[in-house]
């Protein structure tokens, strides 16, 4: 067989399929993990009926959704209504070809030297499906959900992109593999770029419509938001796209800020060269580390969902435009100053100090607030 064909078409396709299957498995698992974890956090058990510990819930749900009646509202815009759930799926799937899962070249599907930009460009098209679906349902709640989603996506695309700039300035590359290689020889980027990491994390929650920012489907306000009128497999497609995008963003934050497939800093630990030294097993190990990190962030999504109330729409905009964007710009400026001064190591210490202060404060018992506790004070 032609070697070029093998290198550029067959192998990438095979690798993409493998990665795609893994990701879809995570999606299936997440439907169970999310509810189970939510249950455990909320003093209940979560789904535990289908199979042992409810493990087969991830299969039972799609089967149920597939068998469900596919309802088309009479006054819906038919073509747009059908396109709505399909459109977000495409970018959500395509992006998986661009992410390095393990040590290159064997464990990257394609290596694009502007991979980061390409991913940003592709993922931001996912919103069209939601807007289209919300509008085509011909339901006021859906419409409001769709509009909210559009505004939210547009607003948070900006801090999302800006927060990455700091990383780019440090690492000097748009190539995801390069960014990871930089982090294993230096510290993981979340240390020098703690603020950027925070902004990225917040924006990615907002991009995915996850809980503090789940306005487009805010079930207590808009019934179900943009997918109020969707049922059956179309609804499943929306969910599939949402979870896939969650995984994409988790992959991105792992790659950009948490060392990708490596497990080590300053050249110590399981760096790429060490993993390569272990041969194929090392590659598998790298991918495992990568997906383990991704799963951690997926769980953090759930943890957030369990903890936080929901923002209001104008507050969400405020946060995006008045806080996140200036903060991201400031971060770029400060990073630039440090780089100019050649004091990049100092940023690590600042990041460490901030983290340390947070942990310290959090470990302390909060002082009881006097007035609220007056009942007990007076008794004592």
């Amino acid at each position, binding site marked *: 067989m032609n070697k070029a064909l093998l290198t550029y078409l067959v192998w990438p396709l095979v690798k993409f399929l493998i990665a795609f299957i893994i990701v879809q498995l995570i999606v299936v698992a997440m439907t169970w993990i999310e509810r189970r*974890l939510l249950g455990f*956090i909320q003093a209940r*058990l979560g789904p535990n009926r289908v199979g042992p510990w409810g493990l087969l819930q991830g299969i039972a749900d799609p089967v149920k959704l597939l068998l469900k009646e596919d309802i088309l509202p009479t006054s819906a815009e038919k073509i747009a209504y059908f396109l709505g759930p399909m459109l977000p799926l495409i970018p959500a799937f395509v992006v998986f070809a661009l992410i390095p899962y393990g040590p290159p070249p064997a464990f990257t599907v394609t290596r694009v030297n502007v991979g980061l930009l390409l991913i940003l460009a592709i993922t931001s098209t996912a919103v069209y499906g939601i807007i289209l679906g919300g509008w085509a349902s011909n339901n006021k709640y859906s419409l409001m959900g769709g509009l909210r989603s559009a505004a939210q996506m547009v607003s948070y695309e900006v801090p999302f992109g800006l927060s990455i700039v700091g990383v780019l300035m440090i690492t000097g590359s748009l190539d995801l593999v390069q960014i990871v290689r930089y982090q294993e020889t230096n510290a993981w980027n979340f240390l020098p770029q703690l603020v950027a990491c925070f902004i990225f994390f917040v924006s990615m929650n907002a991009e995915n419509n996850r809980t503090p920012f789940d306005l487009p489907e805010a079930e207590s306000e808009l019934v179900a938001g943009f997918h109020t009128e969707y049922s059956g497999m179309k609804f499943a497609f929306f969910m599939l796209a949402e979870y896939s995008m969650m995984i994409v963003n988790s992959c991105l934050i792992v790659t950009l800020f948490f060392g990708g497939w490596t497990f080590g800093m300053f050249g110590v630990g399981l760096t790429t060269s060490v993993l390569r030294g272990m041969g194929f097993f090392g590659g598998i190990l790298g991918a495992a580390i990568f997906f383990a990190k991704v799963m951690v962030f997926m769980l953090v999504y759930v943890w957030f969902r369990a*903890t*936080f109330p929901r923002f209001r729409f104008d507050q969400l905009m405020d946060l995006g435009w008045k806080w996140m964007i200036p903060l991201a710009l400031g971060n770029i400026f400060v990073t630039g100053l440090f780089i100019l001064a050649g004091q990049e190591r100092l940023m690590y210490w600042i990041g460490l100090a901030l983290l340390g202060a947070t942990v310290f404060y*959090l470990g302390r018992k909060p002082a009881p*607030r006097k007035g609220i506790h007056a009942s007990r004070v007076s008794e004592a």
Partner: protein
Amino acid sequence: MQVEYPKPSWSQKFLVLDLLEGLKTTFRELFKPKVTVRYPEERNEPTDRFRGMFKFSYDRCIACKLCAVACPIDIIYIDVHDDMIEEGGKKKKVKVLDRYDIDVKRCMFCALCEEACPTKPKSIWLTTKTYELATYDRNDLYFNMQELEYWEDRPRYTGLPEEDEKPRLDETRLLK
């Protein structure tokens, strides 16, 4: 008393400690014991006073109709006739209970009938600790005297009735 408003310090605000505090709480809860009961397998035992399904005792009942009077929604139907019996050579007038029906589907389990019952022990009581009363047919919830006394022995539900036999939603009953 004026309620106290929380005043976080500047550093606490900067480090988003208010949010992390909540995360800490949920994380701690993750490892606490769970309170839900896996219902059909595990059951909570009702307390001794739990007001559940009725139980009726024909032998104790003196047919005084006080329970029917006490019922706020009139779902206890009692028919009585007088009978003469001979006891020790004397003729004695007794009340004989012909009908003692309770329309359990309309019951709100207030236990006023139990409270009104003058016999000791009560001849109608609700402390049977039975709460699984769901049926597939509304009419199954109309209990007559025998059923009220021996509902444990009632034939269990065996399956949906045939299509023709299915009770239809009768609008007259709704309007009444």
